[in-house]
């Protein structure tokens, strides 16, 4: 049977950690937390992927490849006997030990990276419009996005990792064929101290009646941190789109005669 085993032992992160740390070491500052493997972040569509890993050919242990009969003379170390997670001794990858045993057929030497990837999704943005669900032709409707800087926690190689999302731009598709960009998410008329139907930095006036779907896309800049306090930039921008917001655009007369106001003191009553 041409059965080849490739065994790879990458030094554990623990090997870089101090084996001993007593109170005096701690006071002298010679006890450090383990240095996690270097991580990198990338934007993938609507989320950020953080990845970290250890290359197989960078450790103290040379990767060993050999056929089962060891006929090629290569050093043969098919199974890591000290691998604590080796239930069958077969196809196996142990994340925390960073040990891979791969079985295959006539495998050439391979450089192998055992990596961990974590995906981080930003919060869904939320948009609202004033008035809520309707607008009047020719009068500004005020659009407000609920998006803020936020941190999404996760783990990478068993260690804490975080991605921080910061909204940097807003693309407002008003659903009537027009759109606008803003750098801010806008504010309610009340928060701005304005009367209803006042023009704001994120308001839009529809020109004709009808039902429209307004769609907000928020651009996030992302940063990550892993094993330290420093935020590292992630190259690229994430564009996250909100669920469409249904708005009925009516004429002023329609709104004013459209229903009984009762005790409602909102516009038109």
């Amino acid at each position, binding site marked *: 049977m041409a059965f080849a085993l490739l065994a790879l032992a990458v030094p554990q992160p623990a090997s870089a950690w101090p*084996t001993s740390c007593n109170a005096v070491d701690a*006071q002298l500052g010679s006890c450090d937390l383990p240095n996690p493997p270097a991580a990198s972040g990338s934007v993938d569509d609507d989320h950020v992927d953080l990845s970290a890993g250890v290359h197989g050919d960078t450790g103290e242990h040379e990767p060993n490849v050999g056929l089962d009969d060891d006929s090629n003379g290569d050093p043969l170390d098919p199974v890591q006997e000290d691998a604590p997670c080796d239930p069958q001794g077969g196809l196996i990858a142990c994340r925390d030990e960073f040990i891979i045993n791969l079985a295959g057929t006539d495998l050439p030497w391979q450089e192998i990276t055992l990596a961990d990837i*974590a995906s981080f*999704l930003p919060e869904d943005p939320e948009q609202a419009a004033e008035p809520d669900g309707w607008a009047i032709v020719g009068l500004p409707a005020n659009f407000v996005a609920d998006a803020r800087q936020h941190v999404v926690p996760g783990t990478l190689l068993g260690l804490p990792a975080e991605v921080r999302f910061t909204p940097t731009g807003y693309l407002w598709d008003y659903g009537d064929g027009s759109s606008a960009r803003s750098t801010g998410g806008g504010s309610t008329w009340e928060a701005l101290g304005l009367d209803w139907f006042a023009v704001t930095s994120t308001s839009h006036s529809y020109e004709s009646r009808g039902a429209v779907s307004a769609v907000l896309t928020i651009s996030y800049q992302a940063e990550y941190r892993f094993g330290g306090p420093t935020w590292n930039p992630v190259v690229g921008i994430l564009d996250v789109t909100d669920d469409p917001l249904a708005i009925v655009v009516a004429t002023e007369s329609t709104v004013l005669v459209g229903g009984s106001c009762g005790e409602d003191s909102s516009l038109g009553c």
Partner: protein
Amino acid sequence: MSERSRSRTAAVLIAGLATVLVLVACAPTAEAPTPTASSTAPTPFFASDEEALAAATAAYESYLEVSDQIAADGGADPTALKPLVSVEEYERQEQSFLGFTERGLHAEGSSQVDSERLEQANLVVGNVSIYLCLDVSEVRLMDDAGVDNTPVDRMDRLPLQVAFASEGESLLISQSSVWSGDNFC
């Protein structure tokens, strides 16, 4: 929020490889510490896990007090630690105190310990290991001129794993190391 982050382990083959390889990720072994129950016997050293934890905690606090006193005196004479630590650990402590004596430093302030948790205990024999958080934030390293030499990048709180072995009626520290899993401090 946390459910938004998905994590998966992947083994990635960098070089081109047509052969299909199956990789199975194993359960991590360096996860959060879990206390382990131990067996009982007619004349156990400890009556319970709780008693083992309490004894280990008390032993570590005694050690800290003595160690702090030695550090306050400049570390020249660590012999007072001998009744509190194993022979091997005493040698490591001696080495550590060279960090004081060789630089002419002494400590001001005291170390604190909190969040002690039992890792495992052999109630019969009296061997215990615990997790704890060592807090040295109040300890300053001063030189003879009164200048603060405390490293600016020092970790002030450390997750430690400390093992104790019984000797006679007492518990001696036999090992002390930084916990290699998630930082619980």
